[in-house]
């Protein structure tokens, strides 16, 4: 069963990579990058259970936290055009 799940995740990962490569707009690529991070987490979890090491699930959780950082940075870059924007200058909390 885990073999089946791993195969499905691999196929989905390949499709997401194709979207990240072809993606006509930047937002396609951002979303594909985030999705690939999620699929890496799923792959970790399913491979861990498949090879009898369920403790990889903890590493997968840490990856989930890391996946957030780069996506947040990219989106902040788009919203403000700057990573360290001045709150008082923009006039919003």
């Amino acid at each position, binding site marked *: 069963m885990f*073999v089946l799940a*791993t*195969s499905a995740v*691999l196929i989905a*990962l*390949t499709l997401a*990579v194709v979207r*990240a*490569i072809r*993606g006509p707009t*930047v937002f396609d*690529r*951002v979303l*594909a*990058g985030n999705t*690939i*991070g999620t699929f*890496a987490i799923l*792959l*970790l979890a399913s*491979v861990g259970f*498949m*090879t009898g090491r369920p403790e*990889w699930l903890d*590493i997968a959780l*840490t*990856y989930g936290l*890391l*996946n957030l*950082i*780069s996506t947040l*940075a*990219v989106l902040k*870059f788009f919203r403000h*055009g*700057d*990573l360290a924007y001045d709150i008082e200058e923009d006039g919003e909390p």
Partner: protein
Amino acid sequence: MIVLVMTVLLTLLAVITIVIIRQRSLFAVVILTGVYSFLMASVLIVLDAVDVAMTEASVGAGVSTVLLLATLYLTQSREYPQPRPAIIPLFVALGIGGALIAGTFGLPPFGSADTPIHNRTAPRYLAKSIEETTVPNVVTSVLADYRGYDTMGETVVIFTAGIGVLLLLLGRRRRYSSETGEEIQGE
């Protein structure tokens, strides 16, 4: 099944590398390097190198994406005309790559206990460490005593890099301040 997983992941890595080289949009390159790091971290996990994979995921996918984006914001991009394909560098790269691959065939088998490093230095460190250095922790005595010059060299490299980064950042801030004329007193 593990072989299949590795094959798919490594193929995707190769494809992404080629796309990064050929991609003209720098923002797409930043995203694709993050994708590359996540796939590489998965490869390392499947190879059972969990600590290396954690470093790759946090530094490669997390921090360096932020640093590359900051660089994109702080610099301008300009595209030079495509250089003509050069034959000699290709052959040099192929030759060096072939030599490196040929060199791996001379290595002892993976995990072999008969290599010199396991038979000469490590037992001596373990046997004589406390007697020679009076440091209770063997790892500390190896890093700071037996390999003291090596560690000092590494520290010098990191120190120099830190000074370089500080000088670059300070130079930039001072130029910015002289334009506006009011920031420099506050610093």
